């Protein structure tokens, strides 16, 4: 009896060790393959996404047409700064529909339309951002601060100035996880479709929102297509699907403008956050004067 239990335990440990080592082996085949000189050379053939990009900067230029603005051109209307996103014309079935989404916004299922209505009827004084939590995906891509793209073998990295955030997009051929942990940015894989970086992302924290006031389910997926519309203008088309929250895919587009001379600044949100929200959800201002140096 006792020995049987021991055997069972030993088998269990062996199985666990086997499963664990198997998982490690899989991860190693992806992440530990050293890049070759050819891998680095191949990057030079990809579109040049490097550098710091300002969100906004007006609508995307027509292909082959006039540019939206020269680098440093101050002509972009102020109203286009910040959000830098315009919702695209509805695709296919998307429309006013049953969702109750605003015109041009996501078309919501009745359940999520009700959630949004409840939120609007009794709006919280603030979002988690007031306590310095980042918006996560997709909101983090629409902040009024720039982002920087890094291309290395097997990975595209997006450094986002707001909240000092980082997105890792793996382009080494790995698959998306079946059961990802929910995170602010999700888990992303990418591939190059000609000159377009195609990114798929899954697994989002419930804190993130599809759009302002619109929660998502754990089935939300975000597809993004990044391409250079002209040498210093990047076009990003974002399509969000969520079978529980949305009645149709929600597509929006934004443009980024490259500034070769810019560098990312640091953004430590907790440095001096004087407008936090307390546990009751009430927003407050800390007006205690700073200590004199």
């Amino acid at each position, binding site marked *: 009896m006792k020995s049987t239990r021991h055997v069972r335990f030993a088998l269990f440990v062996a199985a666990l060790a086997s499963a664990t080592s198997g998982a490690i082996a899989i991860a190693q085949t992806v992440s530990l393959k050293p890049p070759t000189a050819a891998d680095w050379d191949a990057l030079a053939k990809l579109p040049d996404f490097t550098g710091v990009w300002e969100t906004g900067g007006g609508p995307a230029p027509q292909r082959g047409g006039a540019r939206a603005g020269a680098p440093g051109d101050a002509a972009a209307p102020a109203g286009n700064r*910040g959000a830098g996103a315009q919702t695209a014309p509805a695709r296919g079935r998307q429309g006013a529909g049953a969702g109750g989404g605003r015109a041009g916004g996501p078309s919501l299922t009745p359940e999520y339309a009700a959630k949004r209505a409840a939120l609007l009827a009794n709006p919280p004084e*603030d979002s988690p951002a007031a306590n310095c939590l980042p918006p996560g995906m997709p909101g983090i891509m*629409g902040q*009024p601060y720039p982002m920087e793209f890094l291309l290395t073998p097997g990975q595209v990295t997006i450094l986002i*100035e707001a909240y000092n955030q980082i997105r890792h997009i793996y382009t080494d051929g790995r698959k998306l996880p079946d059961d990802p942990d929910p995170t602010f940015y999700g888990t992303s894989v990418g591939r190059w479709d000609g000159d377009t970086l195609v990114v798929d992302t899954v697994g989002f924290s419930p804190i993130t929102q599809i759009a302002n006031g619109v929660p998502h389910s754990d089935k939300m997926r975000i597809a993004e297509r990044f391409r250079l519309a002209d040498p210093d203008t990047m076009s990003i088309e974002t399509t969000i699907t969520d079978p529980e929250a949305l009645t149709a895919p929600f597509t929006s587009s934004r443009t980024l403008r490259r500034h070769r001379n810019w560098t990312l600044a*640091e*953004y430590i949100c907790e440095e001096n956050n004087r407008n936090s929200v307390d546990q009751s959800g009430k927003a407050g201002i800390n*007006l205690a*004067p*700073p200590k004199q140096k």
Partner: protein
Amino acid sequence: MKRTMRLISGLTAAGLIAAASGVVQAHHSFAPFDMANQKTVTGTVKQVEWTNPHSWIWLDVANEQGVVEPWGFEGMSPNYLARRGWTRTTLKVGDRITVAYRPLRDGSKGGMFVSTKLADGRMLTMSGATTTDR
């Protein structure tokens, strides 16, 4: 010099609103502020906190009895302002300025910074076009 010129640009009401909207998207609660109202107050710059997630401009303001009280004004973040011509020393300790601001709903001494006129007559706002060199 270029930055100085940028300071003067973009003084439209739309620009101000755009800047304020930017705050919302980045990090903010508007709840404590009365965004429909604008007031002015005059005082002496005590300190500028060039910090994230927002800058704060602190003034010494004399009340009706002549007692000096601290007032605080919240502004955009340093990265945002730096690309629109500000530096951490654009406003200097001891500068006497009049600040236009969105008041706090509870009447506390402070608000959200909108603009100020500098001693040389230039208007200083937190909106406007970005520079090319930051």
